[in-house]
């Protein structure tokens, strides 16, 4: 990274989760973490009021970047987005003093298996581009082959143009984009690709196109469509999450819902995630699976506790044990 962009200590956590995450990430020291936790508790009401009253791009941008930082893993993705932010800012300053500016190619390819955060990042990017005033609205329109490809000649171009029109001022996110090339040269998918390429010229700077899909398929797709290759400045990799990242994701999801993992449960979970990674399970490294597991565990804990006769303490109500998860069990 360039000089001067060394990470500075973050200062305004919005949630307890931010604080613990910064602490774990080594971005703040122990006593600072405790101070933030205290201030959050004491100022919660006040901050809520301020936040809802305050407007302006700066605050909004802070918010989106914090959300981005709060995503687990995705180190390279985060770095590239910081670079884009810096680039946009510098281009603006160059323009102010009359220097040459590059027109930016913000269209991107997101490569990665499902459940690795591609849509989440795309949505956040919308907010970031809006706060940087690169896009006027920053909304996200999510489509896939079935939404773009029609049944007769001309139908596809029309449907694709409709999608683009909806995305103007924001981001058009084409999931499993390689499927557009699936049917070979005579397929209507080709028409969709051509329409997209043309729109990138016609509506330059008015929308950002993100093509997403499995890494191998996307490589092939971009390679075999020269019109695309030259127009995508950025190709971002979304690797499957590691077992440890999945555990962290799980803890954070639980934290939001005011649950915690019981001693021991965390280790079992990590063990389980490692096992399915080794067996090349289709869900390996997939954060969506974590959500499902967790939701089921919450239901099973409820069932387990409701049967008990003794009083349930606050701590018991919050704690999920491994028996609640155990994905092997029925």
């Amino acid at each position: 990274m360039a000089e001067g962009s060394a990470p500075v200590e973050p200062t305004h956590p919005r949630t307890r989760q931010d604080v613990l995450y910064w602490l774990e990430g080594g971005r703040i020291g122990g006593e600072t973490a405790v101070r933030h936790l205290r201030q959050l508790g004491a100022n919660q009401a006040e901050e809520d009021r301020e936040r809802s009253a305050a407007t302006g791009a700066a605050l909004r941008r802070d918010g989106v970047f914090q959300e981005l930082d709060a995503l687990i893993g995705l180190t390279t993705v985060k770095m590239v987005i910081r670079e884009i932010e810096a680039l946009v800012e510098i281009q603006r300053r160059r323009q102010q003093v009359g220097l040459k500016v590059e027109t930016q190619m913000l269209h991107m390819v997101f490569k990665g298996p499902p459940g690795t955060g591609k849509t989440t990042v795309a949505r956040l990017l919308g907010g970031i581009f809006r706060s940087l005033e690169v896009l006027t609205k920053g909304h996200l329109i999510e489509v896939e082959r079935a939404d773009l490809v029609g049944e007769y000649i001309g139908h596809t171009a029309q449907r694709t143009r409709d999608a683009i029109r909806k995305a103007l001022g924001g981001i058009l996110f084409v999931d499993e984009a390689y499927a557009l090339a699936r049917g070979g040269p005579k397929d209507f998918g080709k028409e969709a690709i051509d329409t997209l390429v043309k729109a990138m010229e016609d509506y330059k700077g008015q929308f950002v196109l993100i093509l997403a899909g499995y890494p191998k398929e996307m490589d092939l797709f971009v390679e075999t469509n020269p019109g695309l290759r030259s127009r995508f400045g950025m190709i971002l990799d979304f690797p499957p999450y590691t077992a440890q990242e999945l555990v962290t994701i799980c803890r954070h999801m639980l934290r939001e819902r005011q649950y915690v993992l019981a001693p021991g449960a965390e280790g079992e979970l990590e063990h389980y995630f490692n096992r399915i990674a080794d067996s090349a399970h289709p869900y390996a490294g997939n954060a969506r699976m974590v959500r499902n597991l967790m939701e089921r565990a919450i239901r099973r804990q409820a069932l387990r506790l409701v049967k008990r006769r003794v009083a349930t303490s606050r701590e018991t109500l919050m704690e999920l044990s491994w028996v609640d998860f155990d994905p092997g069990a029925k």
Partner: protein
Amino acid sequence: MGRPNVGKTLLLLNFAAYLGVSEVYRRRDLHDETVMSVDAARSELVSRVALKHLDGLTVRVNGKLPRGRALTLTDGVGLFEGVHPEVKVRHAMAETLERLFVAEMIVHVMDSRMASVAPMDEQLAALGGTLPGAWLVVANKADLASDAASRNLRGHFANYPVLTLSAVTRRGFRRLKDHLFEHMERLG
């Protein structure tokens, strides 16, 4: 809960023994929880060197408790000031801090001998006032400190109950137990 090496683990274990408990649960690394005797835990996990272990230690006390309740005592990892170089430690610290928001009572352990109150302890005590659980300050290692030292601590943390005790000589355990049980009575 408290800074490294203040005697959290020894206090937990000796107090557990005082309550008649002989077994503790130890989460050795991420993968397993094992049961071990209080004596074994003491010889393995209490050390003169700060942070020999990151293991979670849990003591479960049943029977002879107010209102037939169960009691779970949990050891926290030493809370370091500044950014600790090891991610494992930072992770354990975050976990310990997270538990503060869940616990029904938090025992903030300090070393009575400290010359001045550390920033971490100041911050922790301030946090105490914003948490749902009750806060208790324990001035440990009283066997090594002067009476004046513990009086100073008592004055400094005037908003909280402060118990002066020694995890080694077990002086003050009676008061700790009374305090705990009274709190359980109040909780109902």
